[in-house]
């Protein structure tokens, strides 16, 4: 089972400094991927935690929303860990795909490439591969279908229980 939990206490600053890798915003500790501000963490069960960390980075590079926090990307890709737990072919697809990304990136791996342009160049090279299409195709739903994200985009979601928009601005445009 993949778990995500908020505000994981108990990681000392020394632990963070010891375990943090250069250029990587996310921290690997045991089987966990942890946000640098310790606001959230995720335990992996089937995929390697490094793989999950790279998947999170990859997800943001595929759909880069600069003012959307990492945890939404983490939630979006956690399904790959769950699926890898029961589907060996999927586990292989993801592990091999991430390994290939790291290989193309050179020393420091994909997460070690500091500039987005350099990472996106690699993604353009692999964009027709089954790995990239599987990750991107899943993200369209797993990322954009998160209700908590909708207000970021200015979408108000469910409407019937509020009586529709007939008194809530359906025709309130003023700038025309």
């Amino acid at each position, binding site marked *: 089972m993949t778990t995500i939990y908020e505000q994981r206490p108990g990681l000392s600053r020394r632990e963070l400094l010891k375990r943090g890798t250069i250029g990587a915003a996310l921290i690997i500790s045991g089987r966990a991927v942890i946000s640098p501000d310790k606001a959230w963490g995720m335990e992996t069960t089937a995929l390697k935690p490094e793989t999950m960390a790279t998947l999170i980075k990859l997800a943001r590079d595929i759909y880069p929303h600069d003012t959307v926090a990492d945890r939404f990307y983490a939630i979006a890709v956690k399904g790959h860990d769950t699926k890898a737990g029961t589907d060996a072919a999927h586990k292989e697809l993801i592990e091999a795909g991430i390994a290939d990304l790291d290989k193309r990136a050179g020393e420091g791996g994909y997460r070690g490439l500091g500039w987005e342009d350099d990472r996106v160049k690699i993604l353009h090279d692999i964009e027709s591969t089954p790995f990239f299409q599987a990750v991107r195709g899943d993200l369209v739903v797993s990322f954009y*279908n998160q209700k908590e994200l*909708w207000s970021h*985009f200015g*979408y108000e979601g469910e409407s019937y229980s509020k*009586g529709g*928009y007939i008194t809530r601005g*359906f*025709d309130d445009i003023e700038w025309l």
Partner: protein
Amino acid sequence: MAAPYDLNDGSVVVIIGSGAGGGTLGNELAQKGIDVVVLEAGARIEHEDFINDEWDSFSQLAWLDHRTTGGGWRVSKDFPNLPAWIVKAVGGTTTHWAGASLRFQEHEFKTLTNYGKVEGANLLDWPVTLAELEPYYAKAEDKMGVTRTNGIEGLPGNNNFKILKAGADKVGYKECHTGNMAINSADRDDRMSCQQTGFCFQGCKWGAKWSTLYTEIPKGEATGRLEVRPNSHVVKIEHDDSGKVTAVVYADKDGKLQSQKARIICVAGNSIESPRLLLNSASSKYPDGLANSSGQVGKNYMRHTTGSVYAVFEKPVHFYRGTTMAGIVRDEAKHDPSRGFVGGYELETLALGVPFMAAFLDPGGWGRPFASAMDSYANMAGLWIVGEDMPQEQNAVKLHGELKDKYGMPIPDVWFTDHPNDTAMRNHAYKQGESLYAAVGATRSFPTPPYPSTHNLGTNRMSEKAQDGVVNKWGQTHDIKNLFVSDGSQFTTGAAENPTLTIVTLAIRQADYIAKEMGAGSI
């Protein structure tokens, strides 16, 4: 006789499908005292149970049985197993539709005469005229409560419409309004008025939008002569040695095969399932499938040129607030070959929520260009192109060579490739849409490709001569007198208008014909 009917009751009319065609036909016949069984593959989901959430609603209502696709259309690349977004539930696609209810134009019934021969296209004149259909169009508009007819006020314009209208005025379009919509602008027919909720495509929870689910079907049931059997997936139509159809074989809610005898059978499963059923009912007497002496069953598949234009503005629009299809520009719906194509198109507003915008704005798109578009979501306006696409024999619903469904029947394989006329029309429409939005300050716009087809037409087309099509002017198959087609697969050509009003119109008229023929003892 009264509903429910016995499986061995061969006096009933059996209708396959409960949507715009099947649901309307069922009620019309029941009102005339004729006994009807409607077999619907989907479940009965009442409007209170619709869901204001795009993906959850899609899972609840969409036809998701396995289908495959082929041909040059982009849908086959981006959504290889989803050629169409239509409904598997009582009410059919009238639960999901946006409500646009436009009459076809006179010249659109005579495309071969008016457009001339178009290379590669299988144009044909309808065997009916607008004049013959006018009394029935009037009945349909009254039945459905279409705005701007029968003294019904137009709906108020939402933000998306206001931008369309401002742009239309600027570029010189003259015919722009909030549409002829089968959505109550005031209480009517025991149904309340539109609350501008923004989830028309997910089924109207208020019942303000017309759907056979909560209009035709309950009215028919109230006569005691209409029985709707949901979760009844029709597998095959059977016939006797004389060639007359006699029974419908279907899988019931437990997956067990049942056989309902019938005096008359009417196929209304929408334009993918209807031809598939006729083809799957092949026998030694009809080796090419039922009613297929012309070879046209499944062919001439049309879906309108479609495509969308979304545009971004400096300030918020919140275009998802209110009716999904909130207005129309009709100026381009004429036949004017000086534009570089035959036939015309309507421009109709459209809005999607964030989840569906992400899926359909630019299928396969990713990276900053895509994400920046999504970041502008709140400032978007949008429209959908509804244009007359060319019937082509190569565009067809075929039976898959190997894959079968859980009842052992070959699944549909839907082939489509744009005709050059389709592409020319769509490109013209993209340019016009972009100009319209630019005229009122759009900073960026997107030519969104066609979605999985929501308009599916032509695969059992009407024709004067039996060699050119599948059914006659009444929707009666040329080959088998007691077998009818009652959905949009009857359409000889697609016109520039949304199909539902014409499907309902043809169903009301077909009911008159069936009743007359039954009374005369000829079927």
